[in-house]
């Protein structure tokens, strides 16, 4: 303990010349809030927390870390669900919280230049007077930062039609681990050179620190409608999703909740959900009124054919927002009915929705833990929430094992272990299932191309080959089951 204290003080000294005293946190009670992120099951006390306010300070901080081989974990709002911002015990947390300014709204080019610590929703609020908005809308949008969104390539309920973070940013300024500041991308629709903008997006703080972002803004749609459809079988609802897309309609949002999650959400925010339904589907259509009407006709026909008995159309803006409020509050709502929960994030081809839900149900029974399902159905992005009680010995481990099995199921059906929350530390073992050792080696080499000393967020996102050997997982070739002849669960 004393050793740690000395190490902490010595490290703090390194930054005294470049940062004011209130930008260096080193007391136990100051460090406490930074011990974990939204994953919460794991805590580590960082050596220090640094809160620079200027790009030049960030650059100098990184240079010092580089020269002294100190690990650096960048941090936005700490809402990440995969443990990406969990500290390194011998490293510093580089908080971007003070970079919270919207620098420019350019209403002619439809862009905004923002600092990384700006909250996602604040961008849309600032763009609103210009008739514009920022499309990617993670459910955590009131709290999460745009820097964190870029680092995770965050999605949201409107990504089906408008794309993920990577499709909605134009330019980034990054600071490299040795303190160099560079721009990637541009305000034009293409720029010379490799697409480093794309590579940085979703890189989980492993390749560089994002310090300035130009995002694309979209015109607010003239009209919006939301249909709420209850189903008495979750499989039928799953199939309806695939049918809507197949009919040639790309809704602005297409979300599904199963009975446990819709009941929890209803109790929490009184969204008006029918609590006797096995599942509900929320379908948002946007654009010109006439276009919406044409699409609505197609969607309603598909829903009825799929077996829907009732289709409710939000009658007012308030009702529409209420429908969405339930969906957006689904995670905290589950938090009210279970002492703890783990949130999974697999993505699968839409056509396997019903089957994967069945498999998940079987796994849930096998492990004796409840699983509630909330998901971006149109994208095939599932969020099974595993309910457990951390104070019961062994239950966290059991929940994590169940979570791992669910993700492996996603890979077996041709999907992926993470659609938008990132790998962090949470899914690091399942990376061994999804990728071959050659592929993992490529990832390590790309990391080294940016960070040759391995100081940026070490130990996250990509497992060592050694770890995979210990985990003993079999790499599952995309979409091919190891033993297709065996009946599954």
């Amino acid at each position: 303990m004393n050793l740690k204290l000395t190490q902490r003080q010595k490290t703090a000294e390194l930054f005294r010349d470049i940062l004011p005293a209130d930008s260096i946190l080193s007391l136990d009670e100051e460090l406490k809030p930074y011990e974990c992120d939204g994953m919460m099951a794991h805590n580590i006390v960082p050596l220090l927390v640094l809160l620079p306010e200027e790009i030049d300070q960030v650059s100098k901080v990184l240079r010092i870390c580089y020269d002294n081989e100190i690990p650096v974990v960048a941090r936005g709002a700490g809402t990440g669900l995969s443990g990406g911002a969990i500290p390194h015990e011998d490293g510093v947390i580089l908080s971007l919280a003070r970079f919270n300014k919207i620098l420019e709204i350019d209403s002619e080019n439809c862009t905004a230049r923002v600092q990384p610590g700006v909250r996602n929703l604040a961008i849309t609020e600032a763009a609103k007077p210009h008739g514009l908005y920022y499309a990617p809308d993670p459910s955590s949008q009131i709290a999460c930062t745009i820097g964190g969104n870029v680092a995770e390539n965050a999605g949201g309920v409107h990504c089906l039609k408008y794309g993920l973070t990577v499709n909605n940013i134009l330019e980034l300024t990054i600071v490299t681990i040795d303190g160099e500041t560079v721009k990637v991308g541009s305000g034009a629709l293409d720029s010379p050179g490799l697409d480093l903008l794309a590579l940085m997006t979703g890189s989980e703080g492993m390749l560089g620190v994002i310090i300035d972002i130009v995002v694309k803004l979209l015109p607010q749609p003239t009209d919006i409608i939301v249909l709420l459809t209850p189903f008495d079988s979750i499989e039928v609802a799953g199939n309806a999703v695939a049918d809507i897309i197949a009919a040639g309609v790309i809704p602005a949002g297409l979300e599904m909740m199963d009975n446990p999650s819709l009941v929890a959400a209803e109790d929490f925010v009184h969204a008006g959900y029918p609590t006797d339904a096995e599942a509900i589907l929320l379908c948002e259509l946007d654009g010109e009124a006439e276009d919406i009407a044409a699409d609505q006709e197609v969607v309603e026909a598909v829903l009825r054919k799929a077996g829907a008995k009732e289709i409710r159309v939000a009658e007012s803006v308030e009702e529409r927002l209420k429908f969405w409020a339930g969906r957006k509050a689904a995670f905290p709502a589950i938090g009210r009915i279970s002492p703890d929960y783990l949130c999974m994030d697999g993505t699968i081809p839409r056509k396997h929705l019903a089957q994967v839900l069945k498999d998940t149900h079987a796994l849930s029974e096998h492990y004796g833990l409840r699983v509630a399902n909330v998901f971006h159905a149109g994208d095939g992005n599932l969020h099974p929430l595993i309910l457990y009680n951390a104070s019961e010995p062994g239950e966290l481990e059991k929940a994590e094992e169940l979570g791992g099995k669910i993700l492996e199921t996603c890979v077996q059906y041709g999907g992926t272990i993470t659609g938008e929350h990132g790998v962090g530390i949470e899914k690091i073992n399942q990376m061994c299932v999804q990728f071959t050792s050659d592929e993992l080696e490529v990832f390590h080499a790309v990391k080294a191309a940016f960070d040759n000393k391995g100081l940026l967020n070490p130990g996250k996102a990509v497992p060592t080959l050694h770890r995979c050997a210990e985990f003993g997982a079999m790499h599952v070739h995309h979409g091919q089951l190891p033993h297709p002849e065996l009946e599954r669960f």
Partner: protein
Amino acid sequence: MSDIQQELLGQVVAAQKNNEPLALLGSGSKRFLLPSECDSGQTVDLTRHHGVVSYEPTELVITARGGTPLAEINELLNEHNQMLPFDPPMFDGKGTVAGAVAMGLAGPGRPWRGAPRDAILGIKLLDGEGRIVEFGGQVMKNVAGYDITRLMCGAMGTLGVLLEVSIRLIPKARVERTLRTGMGYDESRQLMNSMRSQSVPLTGAFWYKDQLHLRLSAASETALNKLQQRVGGEWLADNRVWQQLRDQQHEFFTPADSQSLWRISTPPAAEVPQQEQHLLDWGGAQHWIIAQGDWREPLNAIASAARGHAQPWFSTPKIASTGNEVIKQLQVNLEEVFNRNRIFNPGCCNG
């Protein structure tokens, strides 16, 4: 259909062992336009690695071998009323799907429907170490590992052979029509600027010789008529002009021998002074200019004043010309990962 993955693997392993570079070639439509050193090395004909591997219309995804002609893919998608969102140029009709991805090529719908980077979901890559590796996949959202898939878009074959690509598709619009209206350059730019921040069903907008063409795509006729009432102009009998524009078969794209064709890519509202021979596409973000003599300096100046970049068509510079040393070093480092000893397209590389 033909699969020459094993043969390609053998070629790459031998090239690496003997340090003999390879020139990756799709249909070769670019041959005369890349710097000649790009073609140095033994030619690898990738059109022989060809065929659609899987296509499920209901999943809105297609997976094809790199050498599959775009024309073949488009024909198949047409049957199901679907399309590649980035609608890449086919030029003489021979371009391959990996060639379009490797060049990052997108058609007139680019500002609204995106580029290859926006639609690509996954790749199978043969890299310079002779590794056959897969990144991304066939699902819409995937953030496991670094985004190697999108890194390949526009990399001009400097990071390995694209054996297969998986691409997200979109349904074709139920109604699509072209509106033409007489309008000067400045007025057209203003109109395009104002429409950018409004919800209108636009998927194409180009100006040429005092005429503005707008492509409108929607689910119903009513939405289109509303826009016509506002903008004026007449409906064209068909939408052929967009294909001509995309494939550079439009009358504008015929520079005389003493002239050269340039492309300037800028933020969409950026001011670029009107030139004598000028076509403005992408709703204001892509300027095509036919220039007399050596216009490199003046066009570069115009581009940088508009916060964009100028590029002589018919001769693509090296992959990077950002001029920034840090970026250059990062690119060299990445080449080192995927293309050690620069066995692929050495003339296009930084290192």
